[in-house]
């Protein structure tokens, strides 16, 4: 489900009266507006960071830096060059228009056009930009599908004596940096992998395959050698990543679990991941299970330790990425592990079925999603 945020527009004009007037009309039409009384002020706003506007509407004729110079400045900076840019001008000079369009301005608006027409024009431009982006994303999605590459499995594995489920939601419906894998070695051993590449959307998604390939190889080699140690596997994956020219600057958290269906023992090692949550039915408590390892790719020595977890009948273990603990309230965005724990706890008493927990707890609209969200549940039958 895509989230429709109000569109942000940066209005640049040295005519203060016009600037205020146009701002009022845009605000009435649901835009979030930022005003800049000069190109220099607009650059200062953009350079300050924060969220980039969806569109810049700038006057051409301004004192000091004019609209063309402003546009040229933005085009020379990769951070700003793709923000749709529209010129406002009093002139209907053909040469001037051509010069503006050479600077890859999307369009041109003559200033004495009725303001509501300007708003409609901007709305149309934004609609076209969104549509174009959606089409490009669909193309990449199609290409990925045809290559049959997945960073999230289609279904949960069947593991004797346990019930494994997962829930995943991509940020803004675009595949991102979270990845999940279930690796079956034989009927006795299953590995569970949950990772989170630091980044979002396509860029992070492309790197998930590099990380996943290394994890899968390290798990397979360990199994061939009959070495079932999650910490050794993590250490190996980390060492390879630190030497990988492409991946060494990319960081990822990882939770690696090994389920032994014969002894019912779970072994866990983590790399910069959030502590797992273990629900004990007997004590009716949700407790943290922490690991000591650092993010993959950070240092060659990642300090990976191993923890044994024994689930009793009716117990549940949750493994999740940081998107699950992000919330938005009246004061803004925040990450709050304890709040997630408190929200989850009441469901432990009432619900046995993970699908019910997922549909009631994670699909709610109480908090707007701010990142990929993934959670795996291991339930002991």
């Amino acid at each position, binding site marked *: 489900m895509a989230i429709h945020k109000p569109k942000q527009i940066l209005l640049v004009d040295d005519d203060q009266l016009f600037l205020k007037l146009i701002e009022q009309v845009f605000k009435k039409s649901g835009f979030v507006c930022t005003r800049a009384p000069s190109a220099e002020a607009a650059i200062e706003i953009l350079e*300050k*960071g924060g969220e980039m506007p969806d569109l810049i509407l700038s006057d051409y004729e301004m004192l000091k830096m004019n609209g063309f110079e402003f546009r040229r400045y933005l085009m020379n900076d990769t951070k700003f060059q793709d923000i749709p840019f529209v010129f406002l001008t009093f002139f209907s000079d053909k040469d001037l228009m051509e010069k503006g369009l050479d600077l890859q301005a999307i369009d041109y608006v003559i200033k004495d056009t009725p303001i509501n027409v300007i708003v409609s024009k901007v709305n149309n431009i934004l609609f076209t930009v969104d549509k174009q982006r959606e089409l490009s994303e669909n193309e990449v999605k199609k290409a990925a599908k045809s290559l049959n590459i997945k960073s999230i499995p289609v279904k949960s594995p069947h593991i004797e004596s346990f019930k494994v489920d997962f829930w995943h939601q991509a940020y803004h419906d675009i595949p991102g940096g979270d990845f999940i894998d279930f690796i079956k070695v034989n009927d006795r051993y299953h590995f569970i992998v949950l990772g989170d590449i630091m*980044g*979002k959307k396509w860029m992070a998604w492309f790197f998930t395959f590099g990380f996943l390939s290394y994890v899968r190889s390290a798990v397979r080699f360990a199994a061939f050698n009959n070495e079932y140690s999650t910490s050794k596997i993590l250490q190996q994956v980390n060492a390879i990543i630190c030497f990988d020219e492409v991946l060494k600057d990319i960081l990822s958290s990882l939770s690696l679990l090994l389920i032994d269906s014969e002894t019912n023992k779970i072994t866990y090692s983590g790399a910069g991941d959030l502590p797992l949550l273990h629900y004990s039915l007997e004590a009716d408590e949700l407790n943290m299970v922490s690991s000591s390892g*650092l993010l993959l790719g950070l240092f060659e020595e990642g300090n990976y330790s191993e923890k044994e977890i024994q689930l009793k009948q009716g117990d549940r273990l949750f493994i999740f990425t940081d998107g699950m603990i992000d919330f938005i309230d009246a004061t803004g965005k925040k990450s709050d592990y304890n709040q997630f724990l408190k929200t989850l706890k009441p469901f432990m008493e009432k619900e046995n079925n993970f699908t019910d927990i997922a549909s009631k707890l994670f699909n709610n609209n109480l908090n707007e999603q701010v990142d990929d969200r993934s959670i795996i549940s291991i339930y002991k039958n």
Partner: protein
Amino acid sequence: MIKVYKELDDILLVKLDIKEASLENGDAFKAEVIKLFEKQQKSIAIDMSSVEYIDSSFLGSIVSVFKHLISFKSELVLVGLSKDITNLFALTRLDKVFKIYNNFDEISK
């Protein structure tokens, strides 16, 4: 996005002036700090007390700057983390990686 607050002999004290540190401004942050480091060639302490929320993309940018600075035998030190962000650092063991101070005075001492 970052402003130099004070220059000490061995470390630059800078302030990060954003409320939400996320994917939107992570790359710009990284570029600015590295540019500053290349000019000044000394360790950098960043006051993050105005940051209320940080996402994993921005954390990635901070860690990446940290790695860059250590490769030149310098440090990236963090200052004034909010309670939520301190918790996030502790939960993910990043508190073991960074030197973290409450304020600039603690560094100057």
